[in-house]
């Protein structure tokens, strides 16, 4: 079996999701399915118009945490490629924040692994969002219990 192609990147520069997906499409003839998730910055959150977002992370731990999440996915599903790219620094509304892409022989593994990866990333990778509203106020974004619940789903015995 060919080695799994994995790529994990944390970057301050802009991200082009379509360009990032290109290499996963049509280069491996054993691949039958590619799924992807792109998280975008919204201009409205918690009752306020958001003008700008700054993403902070824990350099070193971030990469380790993302690698651990990818390793966990590889024990659960048969995958051919996994790509995770996450922005840090200053973002504007509509900017891509995160890309998760998975290639597999079949759609089932590709869909489930992609959702698992983003669910775990949202609760285990050390990133924090700070918003600047249109009024000029800055605030740290609160974590959501719905994200915890989404990640919890994968702990059950029937999670694969």
């Amino acid at each position, binding site marked *: 079996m060919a080695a799994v192609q994995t790529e994990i990147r944390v970057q301050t520069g802009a991200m082009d999701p379509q360009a990032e997906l290109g290499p996963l499409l049509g280069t491996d003839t054993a691949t039958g399915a590619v799924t992807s998730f792109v998280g975008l910055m919204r201009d409205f959150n918690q009752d306020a118009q958001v003008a700008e977002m700054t*993403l902070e*992370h824990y350099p070193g731990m971030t990469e*380790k945490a993302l690698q651990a999440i990818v390793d966990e996915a590889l024990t659960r599903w048969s995958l051919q490629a996994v790509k995770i790219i996450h922005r840090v620094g200053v973002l504007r509304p509509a900017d891509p924040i995160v890309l998760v892409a998975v290639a597999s022989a079949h759609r089932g593994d590709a869909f489930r692994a992609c959702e698992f990866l*983003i669910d775990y990333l949202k609760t285990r*990778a*050390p990133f*924090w969002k700070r918003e600047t509203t249109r009024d000029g106020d800055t605030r*740290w974004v609160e974590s959501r219990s719905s994200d915890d619940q989404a990640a919890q789903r994968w702990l059950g015995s029937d999670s694969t």
Partner: protein
Amino acid sequence: MIRVLFFASVRDRLGVADESLTETPANVAALRANLAARGAPWDEVLGADQRVLAAVNQTMATDDSPLSDGDEVGFFPPVTGG
């Protein structure tokens, strides 16, 4: 000696990003209790009733994770990436 790092709202509220401590507490809970015992704002930010996560050597830790000389401990709020 251990190195302690603070991130995001935890850092902002404490006004400190990192520091080195000469003594190594037994575990994460002991370290957190020592820091909270400094009084405001430490007790308000790191008190046992506050939702603060910890990592030891850049891996998620729990209260009873043991500490050793040379360890790096990070304290931060629940994560909000993605």
